[in-house]
């Protein structure tokens, strides 16, 4: 879903995808690098700190309403890599879980939660997200454990063949 506000001189485009939402802010015809905030406060701070741009009240109100709308019914994308799985909500929160080989110091189910470009500044959102996912954690744990076993099997083959 694409939301637009303003014009080419000072316009805002919000693209809500399946795993993330990005805000593109245009100021005096120049594009400000795309932001992926989970809250208007984060976006406002970032615009002020990095680009010395003050968000106008009407813009803030509009962005807030759009992000609220997205947050009300966020879509979630599941992604995986060799040593982790992650759930990414399109209000820009994610929960990721790593295998212990990726994080040797941590338990198997190592959780990393956050938001792009910032910490989660709305704790209730994180709680809601964790609650959404927690009943499926046994499956996540099975996946992580399976990946560890696969990794061990491959190491065993490789080490033995190479005489290490």
């Amino acid at each position, binding site marked *: *879903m*694409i*939301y*637009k*506000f*303003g*014009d080419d001189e*000072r316009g805002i485009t919000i693209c809500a*995808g*399946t795993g993330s939402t990005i805000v593109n802010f245009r100021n005096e015809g120049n594009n400000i690098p795309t932001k992926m905030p989970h809250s208007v406060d984060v976006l406002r701070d970032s615009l002020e700190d990095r680009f010395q741009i003050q968000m*106008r009240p*009407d*813009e803030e109100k*509009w962005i807030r309403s*759009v992000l609220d709308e997205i947050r009300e*019914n*966020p*879509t*979630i*994308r*599941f992604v*995986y*890599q*060799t040593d982790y*799985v992650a*759930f990414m909500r399109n209000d820009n929160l994610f929960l990721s879980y790593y295998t212990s080989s990726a994080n040797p110091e941590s338990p198997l189910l190592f959780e990393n939660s956050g938001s792009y470009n910032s910490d989660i500044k709305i704790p209730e959102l994180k709680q809601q997200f964790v609650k*959404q*996912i927690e009943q*499926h954690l046994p*499956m*996540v744990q*099975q*996946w992580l454990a*399976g*990946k560890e*076993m*696969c990794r061990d*099997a*491959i190491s*065993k*083959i*490789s080490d*033995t*063949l*190479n005489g290490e």
Partner: protein
Amino acid sequence: MLEHEYHLSEYPRPYIKIQTNHIRTIIEFQDGSKYLAHFNMPELAKKENWLEKFGVADPEIRWIEEKLEKIRSRPKFLVQTDEIQDGITLIRNDNIFFCFSEMIISTIPSAFNLEVDPMGYEGNPFIPNKSPVSGNQLDAFRQQIQPFIPVAYSYLCLSRQIREIRRDLSTVAWKLSGSPDIDTRVRRGIRPH
């Protein structure tokens, strides 16, 4: 990653370099031409006309074979896995490889003795044709791999389970999302003036 190079320095005429790592062995000539090391070097040299191209004759070929023999007598392995297709490939640095694939499990469970592809690098820009590998070489490779079949089998079974879990987790994400709206309709807000 093991990297080793042999240089033919005894002969001032042709410059030849043999480079080997865990994945493959390459022969490089003075003009930068590269070839994957074949099992039958004289045949390759003849076919590619190395004498005319690089001035490489029998003594140089013998030198190459001698070095390759060293590599073949203690080949290095790279064990590669494929995240998407769930297969295992054992790549030897004398340029042959062996694949264990999911398909083998699902169709012919006992058929791990599949043929070793005589040359896994078809399509590689270094050389246009497959390398001839002798039956003995294949048998030796197969024998070397035999003890690992149970481990590979376990890996592939496990890998299948993991894939199913992965699908279930994707379904979880999809269900939690309700019916994801991925259209690109444009919503226009009120202009700020």
